[in-house]
């Protein structure tokens, strides 16, 4: 019994000490430095229109108006782009539900722009891992450009230019992907038309 108590004292003290350091001091120190140096990032990279928060630069939003670019399909639990319950579809590659969903998404995209004959970029018909993907591939943006241009009464070239301006690329050809942030793209589009 004494031997056990001899063991219990270091066990409890080490647990309390390390809990205080790793669970208290450490996260609070990170928070303090974060708020001093990177307050915008620590708060969620929020976007503002005047005083009102209109989203996060990192979190995707749902869009279905033909005059906006559409984001990746989202499989979050309650409704698409539910940022309180992130997640993917978890459907297997051979699951009939997945194939049906992809076929339906393709039909909806084609119905919105029957003149667009190009093959559909894959990211536009597949659900993202988080269900909150803020980006689409540049190919997916360009595929939608004729529809958006048409709905907004813009020349196609101007919409393509906008995409080019917002697009990111692969650093040295291997880190990162050619993508466009959909919320940023749509905000830029709205701003352009408001002018």
């Amino acid at each position, binding site marked *: 019994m004494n031997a056990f108590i001899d063991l219990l004292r270091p066990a409890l003290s080490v647990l309390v000490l*390390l809990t205080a350091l790793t669970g208290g001091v450490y996260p609070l120190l990170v928070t303090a430095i974060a708020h001093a140096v990177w307050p915008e990032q620590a708060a*969620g990279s929020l976007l503002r229109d005047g005083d009102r928060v209109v989203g996060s630069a990192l979190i995707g939003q749902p869009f279905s108006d033909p005059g*906006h670019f559409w984001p*990746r399909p989202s499989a979050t639990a309650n409704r698409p782009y539910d940022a309180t319950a992130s997640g993917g579809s978890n*459907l*297997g590659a051979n699951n009939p539900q*997945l194939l049906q969903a992809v076929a339906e998404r393709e039909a909806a995209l084609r119905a919105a722009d029957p003149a667009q004959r190009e093959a559909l970029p*894959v990211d536009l018909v597949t659900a*993202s891992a988080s269900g909150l993907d803020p980006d689409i*591939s540049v190919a997916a943006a360009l595929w939608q450009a004729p529809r958006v241009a048409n709905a907004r009464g813009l020349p196609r070239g101007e919409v393509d230019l906008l995409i080019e301006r917002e697009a990111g690329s692969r650093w040295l050809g291997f880190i990162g992907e050619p993508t466009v942030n959909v919320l940023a793209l749509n905000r830029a589009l709205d701003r352009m038309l408001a002018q």
Partner: protein
Amino acid sequence: MTAQMSLLLACFVAAIWLIALPLGRWLAVIASGCPPLFAGAERTLLSLCGVRGEEQGWRAYAGALLLFNALGIIVLFALLRLQHLLPLNPQGFSALAPDLALNTAVSFVTNTNWQAYGGESTMSHLSQMLGLAVQNFLSAATGIAVAFALMRSFARSGAAGIGNFWVDLLRTTLYLLLPLSLIIALFFVSQGVIQNFSPDLTVKLLEPQLLADGGVRGSQTLAMGPVASQEAIKMLGTNGGGFMNANSAHPFENPSAWTNVAQMLAIFALPAGLCMAFGHLVGDRRQGWALLAAMTLLFVAAVGVIASQEQGGNPHFAALGVDQAAGALQSGGNMEGKEARFGIAASALFAAITTAASCGAVNTMHASLMPLSGGVALLLMQLGEVVFGGVGSGLYGMLMFAVLAVFVAGLMTGRTPEYLGKKITPPEMKRVSIALLVTPLLVLLGTAVAAGSEAGRAGLLNPGAAGFSEMLYAYSSAANNNGSAFAGLSANTPFYNLTLALAMLLGRFAVIVPVLSLAGALAARVRARRDEAGLQSAALPTHGPVFVLLLVLTVVLVGALTYLPSLALGPLVEHLNLSAALRSPQ
């Protein structure tokens, strides 16, 4: 593989080998004693905690470890059961159900981080920070402590002790995990990972959302919390438990290609560094390189399969006229369950890394991987998490295979097997065998029980072979302390919570105890000092390409013999189903 993938893989492996050098040196310093700079402060801390710091035999070492981890489970369980009464719970989340709290407590203490809950909809900020993140540190430190003890036992000769658990635990946490986590966490924040204690934030949508039921929604609610501090140790300690449900796919956890690179490097850094530290400690750095080379070979082969399968795309989509070709404007490939900013290359690499190391964080949904990719992810876990593996557990797991390889070679050549000057005899082999056989037993028994019971089959999402894979994946992940999932499985049921908790517990401690027992036996053995001139040929050299190959073959052979039938029933059948479905007329 695309040129992009090859370049990414090559640079990643080179970076890991480079990082392993200084880390290995530092790990060896910590394993050998107190860094002089901290000697005074350490003495004060130790005496404050009532730690004398004496050399412990393996039984005392294991006893201290088990007691500490048992206390960790009790405290975490209590915290999760009481979170509704505690502060820092801005969303007012209720207490976790007893079975879920037990599963989660065991999961985080065993370095598994299997999650039967969605973080942002279940856990208060306090539970994440003071409960889960703390065990991310402590379980990592526990694993490294065991690796230290085993490493020292090879280096020592005729010794009674294998070190002191409390001292190892403190040094690892204070001089290694905390400073590195701080640096990584701050990098993450600078790149957009959130770090705050705010309640969920409601923002106005740019375009009102039309819901399936005909309603309209004008706003979106963003989950908040102290993510960056937890994210750093989640990767560095090969824990893998996401703050959010989508884990490292969530833009607030892993916002860019660069944070993703940092996360991948953080996962492999310590497992690779420990190989180098092993070389330092046994006085022959080539021994560490040999282990790292074997791990790298297995890893590169796995990445090759996953990358080519995912880049190849889903043949069903091709039939629908979907463009899956890689190019300058898109990554192409199988994008279901992947994020656009990671594309195929960074997703495939991450999937291999997280299952090779026992991390279990995911930036892509493994259930939606192509069947053969999912199979490779499964196999990487089933090999016992020795391809880099968990922090500490990867090294001690690989050393079990190294001893086995030496033993097999000894049988083939008729010489007494010897590893690093230590004779390997039946008592040692018994301990190695137990350590190697525990997890296969748990995986196969667990899967069989789940597949044979109503409660097990009730949780499946995908039909047929993919459903079987969900169960096989769950027990492979739990018993090998990985923590990733084929997440279609509804695992938050008493059946899965309790059986998986048991698998995690035994998969961790029923391996650690025989490993420590082996350490005790090896430390006591007199180490034969080889004289460089003459006697070197007496035993198989364990630093050359022949040994590396032998080690790789031993790992693959044990894994294949154990798991081929179960893999055939799951991913392999699913792969054949996929090809068959395309051949048959629609």
